[in-house]
């Protein structure tokens, strides 16, 4: 049986002698998941459980004049009704409070106003209709550029633009204006022989996780609280609860359940505080499960954007200047991903002169949240088409053009940092050598496009403990929620470091009471950053065990070493103990051994993962329908701890990117209603819409990680829309300036309608 294309060995230039890292063991939790036994957010059940539902604003922008809950409170089967008044006075930040349960204004359709706990979800839902709310409806602002205008309706009277010049004097919908400047852009453009400028608009897109948010809260007689929730980060949820409930962190235990997809969207907390408030008032545990329409209307998608890009190059092919303006919708409260969009927009290139302006703008839509490489996809959709256009005008092959201009070690980014060793050129070369790049298209109305993207990985704070069992197995605990197979990847790094087989390592995700603070599983940090913690914990274990061997043998500990097979001492070559043999002697030599690793990976210089994607698409020129025929994603992952995981991340990220490119978006009516709050009309790709995605792993080890690991899980979504747009250009001769590239839009661009 021939090896399937995507299971070839990764491309690497270094010989490796690793035993666990680089293998493909089955993932922790997989058996429970196929059995249906894995416990996800809504699967939690407790005695005397009540069910909570949230009342949400039907208006995109309105003042709340009054909220009367009396009729709902009296409804049979209702045990508690809460509003913002039930939040402790002064607890938390104003925007945080307001987005949990609205204060005096609602700022988007779906904005939570009140919640009910009742005997059944049906009763809770019926009782919602009995809450009387009086509104003064205000005009909504729904377009990012409209919101930036001086005469636009204001969402927040207190919001003033922050910029390099400090805080502005008068209120605005622009929360922040950031700017990066490198070199002298005006001079650079003056030197350019070719200049291309284009503007692009992209819609908000939802992460589309199949599992809605769900949270179950239980108060204990001593006034402490336990919350089970499907989240990407139990500790930030604990912080959020502590802040808004005015409760000390140690009194709160957040237990992360299995999570049915997050992609950044479950790094935000929506119903945890509400569940806790209801449970406290009702005196019984309460479970709140969001419906799909609530998820689509009221949880944070990724921002819609307006992006203008201008780039200039010389005839010899060198890009000499670049400029970008990024206006990102933050939703109802400040904090879009414009910062990371601004960071990634030119990240792949060595550009001597550049300026990037980013604007974080509030609009009457739900507060945006992260979505896999937040901010990057629209930015790369824009830049990669402009780069393609420059290459075409200069008559240079698009891959060669990128090779000529790509960033390398030492290149200083527009946002300031110089790159450490990163495989930009290696990825481009691997793509160029790949048979896909030169394969025939095989039919009419077909085109091939490429796009180059980068996403930096964050390391964050992680904790990990490893306890040695007397039989030589170890129990590993981490605070990192298991997404994307990361738990297995973390355990594999520990196993490698300890010289054990993976099956000797039992790994579990701990709750907030059982381990130290650990940041969200997001930002491509988990296998990388918590891997660092696991390695540190493993090294701690080894150090302790070396001391035990020293005691057993009566030799100085400096003479004891461990080569991941046996402990030996230079004093006496006949003395050897395997890990298992030494483990059996721990009680006799001083008691249990427990290693810990608590790291802040961000003290290390940050790396990232570049990716070059090649997309073949076919267009039906009469209908505008696009089919993706073939897709290759080449990516530097540093070192693939579990190549199957990395490939899975690449396949999944590309699938999401295809949805983003062609089908998906949150479309709003003039009154701010979400027009497509269902999975019928928020069109996630089906099995018929995604071709086999071939991942090509390139390994340029990250120098700061002991095994060279890079955070790799987000980059795969970044270049997809750009690659498909560039392919459509080849077929239609038109640049695509909008996302999604729906059939109607494609026909419009072609002048057919």
């Amino acid at each position, binding site marked *: 049986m021939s090896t*399937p294309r995507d299971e070839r060995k990764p491309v690497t230039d270094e010989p490796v002698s690793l035993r666990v890292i680089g293998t*493909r063991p*089955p*993932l922790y*939790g*997989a*058996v429970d*998941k*196929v*059995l*249906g*036994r*894995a*416990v*996800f957010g*809504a*699967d939690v*059940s407790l005695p005397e459980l009540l069910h909570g539902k949230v009342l949400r604003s039907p208006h995109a922008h309105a003042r709340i004049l009054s909220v009367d809950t009396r009729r709902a409170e009296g409804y049979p089967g209702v045990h508690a009704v809460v509003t913002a008044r039930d939040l402790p006075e002064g607890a938390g930040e104003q925007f945080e409070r307001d987005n949990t349960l609205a204060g005096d204004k609602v700022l988007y359709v779906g904005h939570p106003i009140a919640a009910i706990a009742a005997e059944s979800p*049906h009763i809770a839902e019926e009782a919602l209709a009995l809450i009387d709310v009086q509104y003064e409806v205000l005009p909504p602002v729904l377009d990012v550029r409209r919101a930036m205008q001086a005469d636009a309706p204001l969402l927040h009277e207190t919001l003033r633009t922050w910029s390099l010049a400090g805080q502005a004097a008068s209120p605005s919908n622009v929360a922040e204006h950031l700017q990066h400047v490198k070199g002298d852009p005006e001079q650079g453009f003056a030197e350019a022989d070719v200049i291309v400028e284009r503007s692009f608009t992209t819609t908000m897109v939802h*992460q*589309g*996780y*199949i*599992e*809605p948010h769900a949270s179950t809260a239980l108060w204990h007689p001593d006034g402490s609280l336990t919350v089970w929730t499907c989240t990407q980060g139990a500790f930030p949820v604990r912080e959020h609860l502590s802040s808004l409930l005015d409760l000390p962190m140690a009194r709160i235990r957040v237990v992360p359940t*299995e*999570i*049915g*997809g997050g*992609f950044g969207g479950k790094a935000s907390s929506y119903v945890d505080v509400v569940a806790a408030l209801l449970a406290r008032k009702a005196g019984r545990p309460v479970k709140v*499960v969001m*419906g*799909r329409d609530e998820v689509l209307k009221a949880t944070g998608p990724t921002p819609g954007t307006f992006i203008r890009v201008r780039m200039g190059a010389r005839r010899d092919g060198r890009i000499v200047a670049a400029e970008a303006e990024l206006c990102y919708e933050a939703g109802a409260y400040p904090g879009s991903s414009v910062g990371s969009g601004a960071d990634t927009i030119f990240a792949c290139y060595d550009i001597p002169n550049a300026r990037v302006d980013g604007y974080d703008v509030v609009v009457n839509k739900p507060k945006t949240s992260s979505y896999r490489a937040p901010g990057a996809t629209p930015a790369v959709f824009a830049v990669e088409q402009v780069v393609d256009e420059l290459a075409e005008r200069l008559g240079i092959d698009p891959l060669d053009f990128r090779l000529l201009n790509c960033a390398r070690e030492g290149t200083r980014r527009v946002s300031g940092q110089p790159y450490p060793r990163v495989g930009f050129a290696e990825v481009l070369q691997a793509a160029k050598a790949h048979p896909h790049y030169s394969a025939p298209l095989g039919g009419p109305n077909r085109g091939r496009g490429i796009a180059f993207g980068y996403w930096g990985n964050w390391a964050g704070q992680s904790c990990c403990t490893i306890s040695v069992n007397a039989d030589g197995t170890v129990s590993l605990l981490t605070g990192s929620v298991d*997404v*994307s*197979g990361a738990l297995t990847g973390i355990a594999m790094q520990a196993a490698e470091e300890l010289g054990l087989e993976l099956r000797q390592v039992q790994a579990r995700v701990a709750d907030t009471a059982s381990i130290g603070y650990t940041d969200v599983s997001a930002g491509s940090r988990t296998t990388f950053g918590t891997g660092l913690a696991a390695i540190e914990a493993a090294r701690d274990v080894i150090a302790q065990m070396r001391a035990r061997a020293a005691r057993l043998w009566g030799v100085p500990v400096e003479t004891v070493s461990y080569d991941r097979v046996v402990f030996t001492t230079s004093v006496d070559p006949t003395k050897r103990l395997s890990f298992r043999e030494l483990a059996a002697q721990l009680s006799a030599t001083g008691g249990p051994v427990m290693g810990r690793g608590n790291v802040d990976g961000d003290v290390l210089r940050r790396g990232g993962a570049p990716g070059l994607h090649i997309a073949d698409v076919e267009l039906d020129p009469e209908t505008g329908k696009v089919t993706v025929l073939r897709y290759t994603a080449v990516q530097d992952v540093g070192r693939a701890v579990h190549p*199957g*995981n990395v490939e*899975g991340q690449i*396949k*999944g990220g*590309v*699938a*999401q990117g295809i949805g983003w490119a062609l089908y998906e978006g949150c479309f709003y009516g003039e009154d701010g209603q979400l027009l497509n709050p*269902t*999975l*019928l009309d928020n069109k*996630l790709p*089906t*099995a*018929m819409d*995604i*071709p*086999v*995605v071939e991942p090509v792993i390139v390994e340029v080890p990250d120098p700061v990680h002991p095994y060279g690991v890079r955070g790799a899980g987000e980059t795969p979504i970044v270049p997809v829309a750009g690659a498909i747009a560039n392919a459509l250009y080849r077929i239609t001769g038109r640049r695509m300036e909008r996302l999604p590239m729906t059939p109607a839009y494609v026909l419009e661009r072609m002048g057919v309608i």
Partner: protein
Amino acid sequence: MDGKVRVQATINGQPVEFLCEPRQSLLECLRDILGLTGTKEGCSDGNCGACSVLLNGRLVNSCLVLGVEIDGGEVTTVEGLAGPDGLHPLQQAFIDHAALQCGYCTPGMLLAAKALLDRDPDPSEERIRQWLAGNLCRCTGYDRIVRAVQDAARRMRRDADVHAEG
């Protein structure tokens, strides 16, 4: 009377009896009354397939069936796939081929795949994709799921041949 109806059915081969309100979906009854939480809720309007089960041998979205409608019927959920000898070939194949990541769509996907293989023991890739189009997956990009189904089909055909000979 509180308006509840008595329902008798066979679920995963076991006779079951429960009381439910007519407005409670089969999905709710499975999860909240019978404690079978393997079947998942994704959308409650038939657009994601996470709640897929077999009803009288047919693949259905349990969010679009009322509990009262299964009276006298037979239901298979993910909890009914594994046998006394271990995992169902589909379950094993999903693990072997890494056909799941978060695992939330997996119960529905397994039932959908089973419904297909019950009818067509040797489906083409195209047929598998068409059949599974009603089951959304946001994590895997689908091709490993397709491969797992093909592999399970192969194993099941082989086991059937062995049985026939023996």
